[in-house]
């Protein structure tokens, strides 16, 4: 398989914060490639560099065999981008937004109208063609954006957190469209997400944190290599401190649940022998991508999004709002 995207030693820093630290990888043609990491890991920065609207401090980016840093306008013909923040003009109709996109990408008239009709059909919005975008729900807007990114027949689709802020049903739908698209056309998809359960269906997953690649492989291989059995324990109040002493690498969630990394059945047995009578609830979790992330970074992916303090600290590290 030929590489659709090649990234070599890409670095980017904002002031004193290193957003990306010498990131290198290839994405094969027709692959669905996921960038997985917590908020602030550098996923969006990387995607902005790949979509040629941000220049890296160093490194090389090749898209479809063309150097994207020296020939950004050539690369832009091949890529479709769905940004994290909505970027539709909500005072225009669905059709007008797509038509605008086709025009600024030089798609000829008849072809443009045909493609828009096809794509609206794909994302099931044909009936909404002439509605103003501001009357659409956020899930629908996301679908319009996906259709829009394909209006110029892009061969590489970048999706930055396409499901964030959507309800479960809309999220499923988005992934269904992605699956349908890769089945029907020559399309490479790079998607960022911090929802672990979503990347199971991807061909390869790149786990990224603090601007560095921690692991990159298929979900199955990642689970086999880094996955661990997890014990999720809710202890009685008196046992909590003792467990924390015995198992210093246990993580404690805000609701009191403790997550222990188990090395196998023997581990579980010895734990039960000691604390079996002093716990309220225990569940055993088989190796999942969640545990892969935990063992690679030492924390759960949701933790960072949850704690306000860490986010404040990260914000402060970036120089706070004075940098803007």
């Amino acid at each position, binding site marked *: 398989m030929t590489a659709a995207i090649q990234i070599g030693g890409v670095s980017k820093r904002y002031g004193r914060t290193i957003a990306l630290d010498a990131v290198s990888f290839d994405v094969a043609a027709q692959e669905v490639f996921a960038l997985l990491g917590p908020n602030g890991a550098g996923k969006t920065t990387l995607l902005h560099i790949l979509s040629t*609207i941000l220049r890296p401090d160093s490194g090389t980016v090749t898209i479809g065999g063309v150097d994207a840093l020296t020939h950004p306008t050539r690369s832009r013909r091949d890529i479709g981008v769905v940004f994290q923040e909505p970027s539709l003009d909500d005072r225009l109709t669905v059709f007008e937004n797509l038509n605008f996109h086709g025009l600024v*990408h030089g798609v000829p008239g008849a072809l443009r109208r045909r493609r828009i009709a096809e794509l609206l059909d794909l994302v099931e919005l044909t009936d909404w063609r002439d509605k103003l975008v501001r009357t659409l729900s956020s899930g629908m807007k996301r679908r319009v954006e996906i259709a829009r990114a394909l209006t110029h027949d892009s061969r590489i689709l970048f999706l930055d957190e396409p499901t964030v802020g959507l309800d479960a049903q809309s999220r499923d739908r988005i992934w269904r469209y992605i699956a349908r698209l890769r089945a029907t056309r020559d399309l490479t998809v790079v998607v960022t997400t911090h929802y672990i359960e979503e990347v199971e269906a991807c061909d390869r997953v790149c786990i990224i944190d603090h601007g560095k690649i921690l692991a990159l492989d298929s979900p199955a291989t990642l689970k086999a290599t880094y996955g661990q059995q997890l014990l999720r324990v809710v202890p009685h109040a008196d046992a909590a401190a003792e467990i924390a002493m015995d198992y210093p690498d246990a993580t404690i969630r805000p609701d009191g649940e403790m997550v222990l990394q188990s090395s196998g059945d023997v581990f579980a047995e010895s734990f039960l022998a000691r604390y079996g009578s002093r716990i309220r609830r225990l569940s055993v979790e088989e190796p999942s991508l969640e545990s892969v992330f935990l063992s690679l970074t030492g924390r759960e992916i949701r933790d960072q999004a949850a704690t306000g303090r860490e986010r404040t600290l990260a914000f402060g590290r970036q120089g706070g709002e004075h940098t803007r």
Partner: protein
Amino acid sequence: MSESGLAYTFRLHAGGLYAIWFREVKRAVRDRGQLIGGVSRPLLWVLIMGIGLNPYFRGEVYGEVRFVVPYTYLQFIFPAVIALNIMYTSIQSAVSVIWDRQFGFLREVLVSPLPRATILLGKILGGATVALFHGCLVLVLARFADLSLSIGDIARGLLLMALLAFGLTSLGVVIAGRIRSFEGFGVFSNAVILPLYFTSSSVFPLDPSLTNAQTSVIYPEWLMIVVRFNPMTYAVDALRGAFIHFQQFDAWMGPAVLVGMAVVFFAMALRGFSKA
């Protein structure tokens, strides 16, 4: 997308320019508030200010003939009101630059293969078209100002108005490039528009029948200097040339200043936009 070469390049630029221009126009048409402002402003100036002050401007007021001029006050301020309406709409249209940045639409355009100069040109042409339209709204009131316009006058006037609209929309984009919020832009644009308007010899005449020496006796010197250095003075003067055939300055000066404004402000806007 294997096709390349001239046909693609032409279609991309022409189509892109058209799309960006048309979007600006469409948004303006759908924005009722802006349209209401565009209609009420000239009504206020022409019908109320103009008609109200009209008698005091004639030479025979209070039985004392100061000077005799071949036009009424209403006719005198009419071209200036056109300039005012264009100025307001042009500079306000740059709000869409801030809007695009705020709501992410700018990125959608920036990931297209269009060069930034084409994007900016489309935006400015769109804003200028809307401003020109608002200028024409004033022109509809020409009857109330007792103006009889020939086709030639109108054609010449429209050309000058279009140049003015282009230059001022570029100026709006330059301002928008330095200001991040809508509120800030509103305050700032008023702070730019009104002084420019009032010091462009728009509402009071620098009387042609007076010599330079006499003029500086009547008006303070600092005001004379401001008026002479304000480019809008020459824009208004050029419009007067077209609509009431009266000019204080040489006929070539107005168009020259208008072209100069268009070129300089567009270059500045492009410089700012390329960095954005």
